[in-house]
């Protein structure tokens, strides 16, 4: 294992609401190897997008990063001065946004939006460089002179990818980059993202809720539940042998051709982030829950295969398997 390119420790994000403080992200820690593709999955409100945005300190009020560190190139993004933070953003850690439909400024040409990026980091920007970047995501150089409303959703998302890789960042944060696209375009865009990422050797943190898409894209998967990373490990190990009951139910809920017309879900609803249940936040919905689960928050357990699982019975499940 080489030195991690991104190191996240005990990240905590809170949202101050009128009904109290919502704990959106709770002591999330992980490392990212160079060139690695990490997928963050979970249901809505599990804190996956908030985690991704916190990596770039893009949390907006009423959200607040309360604690933890995100270290890239030896600089802590969370504690950095704004000028230092600006130098990192876009150059060392870049964002491929959710909802590419509205992510580009509607009144500026694509070329101007590239020029802005280069100018912000004091780098020269030529037409040839823009054309080269557009070509790398499969777009015609003529796109540079277009405005966003003249492009399709897939094209806009490709432009966003080209913008993200323009300054050869070490880390790309992709926040549900394909959620607004149809399945055909989804595949194309993901393939493009994977290709430019490989060429660049950048690491990717991709947020999504589509387990199938994640299985194809990611090397490692982090499963989030109620603001916590409940299972993190190699994508094949996790799909073959999920250790957290939530992960298993998530994988089981993927529709297949086996029994048509039967949709398996996870019974119950996601817990309130304002007042999470005591102990393990999953215990009210968990089939395996015991007395200890409602009393104690399970600590992160390191399994021999390098996985980290937050479940009191992670070892036991391994014995049963």
């Amino acid at each position, binding site marked *: 294992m080489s030195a991690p390119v991104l190191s996240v420790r005990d990240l905590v994000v809170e949202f101050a609401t009128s009904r109290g403080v919502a704990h959106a992200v709770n002591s999330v820690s992980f490392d990212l190897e160079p060139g690695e593709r990490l997928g963050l999955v979970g249901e809505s409100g599990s804190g996956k997008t908030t985690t991704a945005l916190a990596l770039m300190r893009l949390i907006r009020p009423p959200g607040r990063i309360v604690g933890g560190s995100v270290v890239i190139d030896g600089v802590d993004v969370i504690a950095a001065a704004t000028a230092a933070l600006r130098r990192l*953003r876009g150059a060392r850690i870049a*964002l491929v*946004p959710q909802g590419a439909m509205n992510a*580009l400024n509607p009144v*500026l*040409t694509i070329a101007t939006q590239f020029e802005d990026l280069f100018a912000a980091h004091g780098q020269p920007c030529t037409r040839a460089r823009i054309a080269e970047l557009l070509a790398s995501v499969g777009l015609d150089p003529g796109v540079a002179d277009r405005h966003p409303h003249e492009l399709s959703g897939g094209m806009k998302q490709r432009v966003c990818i080209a913008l993200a890789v323009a300054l050869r960042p070490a880390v790309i944060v992709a926040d549900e980059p394909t959620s607004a696209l149809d399945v055909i375009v989804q595949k194309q865009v993901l393939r493009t993202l994977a290709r430019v990422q490989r060429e660049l050797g950048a690491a990717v943190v991709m947020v999504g809720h589509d387990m199938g898409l994640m299985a194809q894209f990611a090397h490692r998967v982090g499963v989030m539940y109620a603001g916590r990373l409940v299972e993190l490990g190699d994508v094949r190990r996790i799909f073959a042998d999920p250790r957290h009951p939530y992960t298993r139910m998530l994988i089981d809920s993927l529709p297949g051709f086996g029994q048509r017309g039967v949709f398996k879900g996870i019974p119950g609803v996601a817990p309130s982030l304002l007042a999470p249940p005591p102990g393990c936040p999953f215990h009210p919905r968990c089939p395996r829950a015991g007395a200890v689960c409602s009393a104690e928050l399970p600590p992160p357990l390191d399994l021999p295969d390098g996985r980290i699982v937050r479940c009191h019975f992670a070892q036991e499940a391994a014995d049963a398997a």
Partner: protein
Amino acid sequence: MLPYLLRRIGMAALVVFVAVSVNFMIPRLMPGDAVEQQLSAISAAGGQVGDIQAAAAALRERYGLDRPLLTQYLDYLGHAARLDLGVSIAHYPERVAEGVLASLPWTIGLLGTATLISFVVGTMLGGMLAWPGAPRALKVVALPLVVLSAVPYFMLGVVLLAIFGLAWPVLPVAGGFPFGHVPQADLQTTGLILYHAILPAASIVLASLGTWAVAMRGMLVGVLGEDHIMLAEAKGLSPRRIFFAYGMRNALLPQLTQLALKLGLLVSGAILVEVIFAYPGIGYRLYLAIGQKDLFVIQGIVLLLSISIALVMLLLDLLYPLIDPRVTTRQA
């Protein structure tokens, strides 16, 4: 681009044509006969008009009101095309166009400047109010200005007049110009005009600044919540660049529409301010004309107003695509 231009220009021409036509029809659709009314008013006041029927017929002939409506209409269109607005009734035989043109520079100078100043300052102020990184002191300064926008400008004018014209007489109280001074194209004249414009301009600027600021603030708060602002931040752009090119510029469109409408309405003058300060602009002239029931002057000013609105809207339509490129492709 060309079809867009042609469509806009055609639209403006149509609007002017309709406005001119309506301006022709309204006085003729009004109940009663303007000529007979005027004559009976004169006779009631003790004037010698002799045979009312004969006098009315003579007057109708004089104004061409005895001819068929269509002939009158075509005649009127021809005159309007040459900006011939007829003669003033109260100041016969002064031509309406001459009088209006004499007042126009005063109004445009005073209101145009005041409107532009309050637009620029108010819009910037509103933008700063919506910007999270703005200095705190700014919000303290802005509050009274926003409150002032709830005060009608003529009230503000009266108050300013009472303070700076009467209680502490440092500024002139009336007119656009010192009485008895012969205007010349020199610095002294310019200075005197500006000196006289301070109070009326200040009352307009102070009263409208807050409106611009509040509108801009609302728009910009919406724009700053959009996804493209977050991507701009994620690209590491400077706050200044994000503020101007990604925030203000996107929020500006409704402000410009408002500005254009204000500028279009400008030729009707700010009647109350001009009356309070006895300022020799269009508004003051309109006020006098209404008092004197000078129909042709009122009609001429109304016509001027509709044409200027049409022209300003055309100008705006031509400027829109430069600010928001999405406009050209929309079918309007």
